[in-house]
C-alpha cells in the first residue's frame, strides 16, 4: 500500500496506513554520531569477544571461557552448529557495525563511492542476523545452570559485552536505510 510520508519532526516515525509498520524513521542521529557509536562499538567488541566472559572454578582448576572459543571448540563435532553460533554472535554483529561505520563515514566526509549501495544492501540483510541480545540471555541461562556445578566468577569480558550490546542496540534503533539513501542521493 502506498502511503504518503509527511514532513515529520526529528525523533518521530511514520507508519504504514494499512499495516501500521514503521516505514520512515526520522532519527535524530546524525551520520557523524553514528560513526562515533560504530567506532566505539568496534573498539569494545575486541575485548568483548576475546576476554573471558565467565570463569569457572572446578576440580581445583580455574577455567576461562570467551565467546569465540566457545563456538570454535565444537567445529570438529558439529561444524554447522559452530558456524551458526559464530555467525550470529560474532560475524554478523561485527560486519553490521563495520558496514554502518563505512556508510556513516562516507556520508560524514561527503564521499560518494560506487560500492555504497552494496553496503546498504548488506546492512539491511545483516540486521536480522545480529543476535547479541539472545546471546546475553543464553549466557544468563548457562550461568544459572553452571552455578550447580561449581563456583562461578564473572569475567572481564562480560562488562565489555554488556557495553557492546547496549551500543549495538542504540545503533540498530537509530539506523534507517531509507534516510541514508536520501543522504547518499543528496551528496
Amino acid at each position: 500500500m502506498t502511503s504518503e510520508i509527511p514532513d515529520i519532526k526529528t525523533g518521530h516515525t511514520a507508519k504504514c496506513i494499512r499495516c501500521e509498520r514503521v516505514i520512515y524513521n526520522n532519527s535524530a542521529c546524525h551520520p557523524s554520531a553514528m560513526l562515533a557509536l560504530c567506532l566505539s562499538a568496534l573498539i569494545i567488541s575486541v575485548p568483548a569477544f576475546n576476554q573471558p566472559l565467565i570463569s569457572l572454578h572446578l576440580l581445583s582448576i580455574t577455567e576461562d571461557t570467551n565467546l569465540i572459543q566457545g563456538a570454535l571448540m565444537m567445529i570438529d563435532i558439529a561444524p554447522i552448529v559452530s558456524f551458526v553460533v559464530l555467525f550470529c554472535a560474532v560475524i554478523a554483529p561485527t560486519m553490521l557495525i563495520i558496514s554502518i561505520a563505512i556508510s556513516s563515514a562516507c556520508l560524514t566526509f561527503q564521499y560518494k563511492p560506487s560500492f555504497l549501495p552494496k553496503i546498504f544492501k548488506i546492512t539491511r540483510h545483516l540486521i536480522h542476523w545480529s543476535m547479541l541480545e539472545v546471546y546475553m540471555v543464553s549466557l544468563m541461562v548457562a550461568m544459572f545452570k553452571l552455578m550447580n556445578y561449581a563456583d562461578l566468577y564473572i569475567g572481564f569480558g562480560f562488562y565489555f559485552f554488556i557495553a557492546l550490546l547496549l551500543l549495538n542496540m542504540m545503533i540498530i534503533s537509530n539506523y534507517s536505510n531509507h534516510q541514508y539513501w536520501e543522504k547518499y542521493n543528496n551528496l
Partner: protein
Amino acid sequence: MKKVAIPGVSGKKQGLHVCSTCGNYSEHQTHISLCPICDNQIYLRKKNSLQKTWALLITAIIFIIPANVYPITYLLKNNILYPDTIFSGIISLVDSDMIGIAIIVFVASILVPILKIFALIFILLAVQLRWRLSATKQLLIFTFVDWIGRWSILDLFVISIMVAVFDKGNLLSVYPGIAATSFTIVVITTLFAAHSFDTRLIWDAQTLTDTQNNNIQER
C-alpha cells in the same frame, strides 16, 4: 518520466514497485529487474515467495523430529557418557528447582519452533486458499512469530558456552549431539522461511477475494 504515487492505493494497482534496499519506488515494467536508483534487484512481490517458504517449512518439519528425539548434548563424566535430549534437559532443570530457567529453555527450544512452523503454515494456507480472515491479525501473528523466532537460537548458544566450560578430557566434558545440528537446521530454515515470505501477499489474497465477490454480485 516518473509516475507520482497516489497514497491509499496499493503500488501493484498503480504499476509501481518499491525497492527493498533503498526504499524508493519506480514504475514497474516487465523487462526491468533492477532498481533504477540503486541497481539492486527490484520486484513487485518476492519471487516464488510461497514456494520457497513451503520448501523451507517442510525441511524444518523433517528436521524437528531428530532434533527432539536424539540427544542434543553428551555429558562425559568419569568416562561414562550421559546423553541429554532437549526435553530431558528441561526435566533435569525442573528437578534441580530452576523453574524459571526451565521455562525459558522450554519456550525457546520447544514452543517457539513448533509455534512458528504452525503459524507460518496457517498464514500460507490462508493466503493460498484465500480464507477471509483479518489481514492485520495475520500480519500481527507473522510479526510476532518473526520476532520471537530468533530466540530459539538461545539453546545453541547455551550449548556453545557449556562445551567451552566443560573441557576436562575424560573427567568432565560436554559434546554436542546429532540433535544439535538438526536443531540448528530447524532454526535456520524457519528464519529463512519467515524472510522469504512476502507479507503483502496477505493483502493480495484479501483484495482478490473482494473483486471475485464483487463480480459475483454484479452478475
